């Protein structure tokens, strides 16, 4: 099975994530779309890892560890990001990101 299939799947997921970020104003949805993009990259990393293992490389486990670290960072990011969104909701009673543009004044 060509690795291109996984690449295209990842691209599709990534672009859907980008579209979501661009089209929605709900901060939580945007946040989820970012997670979706991270996962698209993770999937690609794992696919490449498998590809190189089959090609005979012995150090291909690194790619999977990168996915692991991405998950670590994502978890940390989510904890802080959600805290910020909660704060924002508490102050404005909304999760509309355009409300935040009030910051410019």
């Amino acid at each position, binding site marked *: 099975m060509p690795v291109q299939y996984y690449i295209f799947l990842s691209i599709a997921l990534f672009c859907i994530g*980008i579209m979501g970020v*661009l089209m929605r104003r709900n901060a939580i949805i945007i946040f989820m779309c970012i997670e979706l993009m991270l996962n698209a990259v993770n999937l690609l990393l794992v696919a490449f890892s498998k590809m190189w293992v089959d090609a005979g490389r012995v150090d291909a486990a690194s790619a999977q560890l990168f996915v692991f670290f991405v998950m670590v960072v994502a978890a940390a990011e989510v904890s802080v990001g959600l805290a910020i969104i909660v704060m924002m909701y508490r102050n404005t009673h909304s999760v509309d990101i355009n409300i*935040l*543009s*009030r910051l410019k004044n």
Partner: protein
Amino acid sequence: MIHLVWLVPFLPLLGFLINGLGRRYLSKPLTGIVGSGSVVAAFVISLLIFFEVRTPGFTPQVVTLFDFISVGSLHIPFAFQVDQLSALFLLIITGVGSLIHIYSTSYMHDESNEGFARYFAYLNLFVFSMLILVLGANYVMMFIGWEGVGLCSYLLIGFWFKNIEYNKAANKAFIMNRIGDLGFLLGIFLLITQFGSVTFSEVFEKVPSVGADSGVLFAIAMLLFIGAMGKSAQIPLYTWLPDAMAGPTPVSALIHAATMVTAGIYMVARSNVIYSLAPHIQTIVTLVGLATALLAASIALKQNDIKKVLAYSTVSQLGYMFIALGVGAYTAAVFHVMTHAFFKALLFLGSGSVIHAMGGEQDIRKMGGLKKWMPITNFTFLIGCLAIAGIPGLSGFFSKDEILAHAFGYSPVIYGLALIGALMTAFYMFRLYYITFTGKFRGTHEQEHHLHESPGAITFPLIVLAILSVIGGYVGMPAVFGVPNLLAEYLSPIFAPSAPFLHAHHLSHSLEWGLMGLSTGLVIVMILWARSKFANYTDNGEPSTGIAKVLENKWYVDELYDAIIVKPLMVLSRFFQDVVERSGIDAVVNGVGSAVKWGGGRARLLQNGQVGFYIFAMVIGMIVLFVISLFL
């Protein structure tokens, strides 16, 4: 001794540094001792060098201190050339310089401590620059000194810088000199491109190979002569010199009579090979010198400022020197430089003594009868006048007669005109003498009460210079007297290379005696005429008319320059200021500013605070980057 020649310019430089840096701390006597002492010491060394140079079999020596410029194949060493010409100029500069320094210690005594030290610092710097000028072994060194003396001249003319008129005079001198300096500089560049060297010995060796009367030599000689015109105050660049009398009188004596203004003569004499090979330039030099001599002499006839008369007299005498250079009588020119240094310095210092006694008054119509109060000044001034008028037995007679004799050999017409100039010289000098020193005193009572003979520091240089003015001529007696011409023999090695290219005109002895008798007789007639006219001068206060008025206004040359050069230049400058600057350059600068401001105002709208828009822009950017990197 020759290898110590660097001490000669170094000592005045040291004096300049001490006086210049310590001007706030040194007392007046100390300043005077440092200032004068350094020049006197330089004079002593110059004297020793001179005697060494005079010994038979001496060959010119070059003392190289260090490599000044070394670019590609061009090497310009910082070197001093000691030969007959430079040794003679060393003597004149340090000798007259020492006397004038001593004179200045008394003349400038009313200055503040700091002004006194500043004055001596400038004067020492001038002597240093002048020595560099004459000692340099190449044209670049000469140019360094050339610029240095120009700077010092500017500083000293504007010494009393609180007077706006004096500052204007200083600016005028500086700018006029700048025109000449540009010519000199271009001449040096042309020398470099043509000969690949600026060292005197190398250039003069290669000059004959270019061929006489060639265009390149014409251009080089003309450009160098333009430089000489500026520095030596020849038509059309002479108008700065009379205005330069704004400086202190000893400065006028040293810089604007004895030394700096003769730099042009020195340069042409030094480059005699080039000029001898460019006969058309020689004709131009002769005509310019002649025109200057006549014009300045005619102006001097009607001037009433004691220093202005002497200034125009200086311009006129410089004209004579250029006549001599033009007709190929280089020795005569250098001879006249020497004698002129003596008697013109004497006359200036004498006028300084008079001005000192008169409490700063310079108008001769307000003087008169000063003989009674100032016997030494009167006597020495009289000797100076006799010398410059050309009375037999005094130095001016021998040098001027030699020039006139050579001019006759060149062309009797030029001789005739030069003789008229010489007669005018005699007339205006004795007009000056009689109005100032004889008759009744015409000043105020206060001034009359104040009149006194000047102190020793002033009269001593006067006496020494008077003696030199008398005996200075005997080193260059014409052949008809049957005495060897010491100066011509001494200088012959310098001018030997150009001798083959000159057409010497030997006058018969009887003709020379005749010319001498003619000029002497006419000069005496002139003196007696001046005596009858001005011995009992009274100022009738009537405004002069006709030609006298034109002469009094200096042929309106300043006005003419003002109208044809200064005014159009001012109009042009105003045009540039009002139109080009304001609506051209300013508009561009302000336009750039407002364009950036306007663009910033528009671009600011991109930062609208909408996160969605930022991400959108980011994605667009990503797409563009991908397209560029992957498909282009």
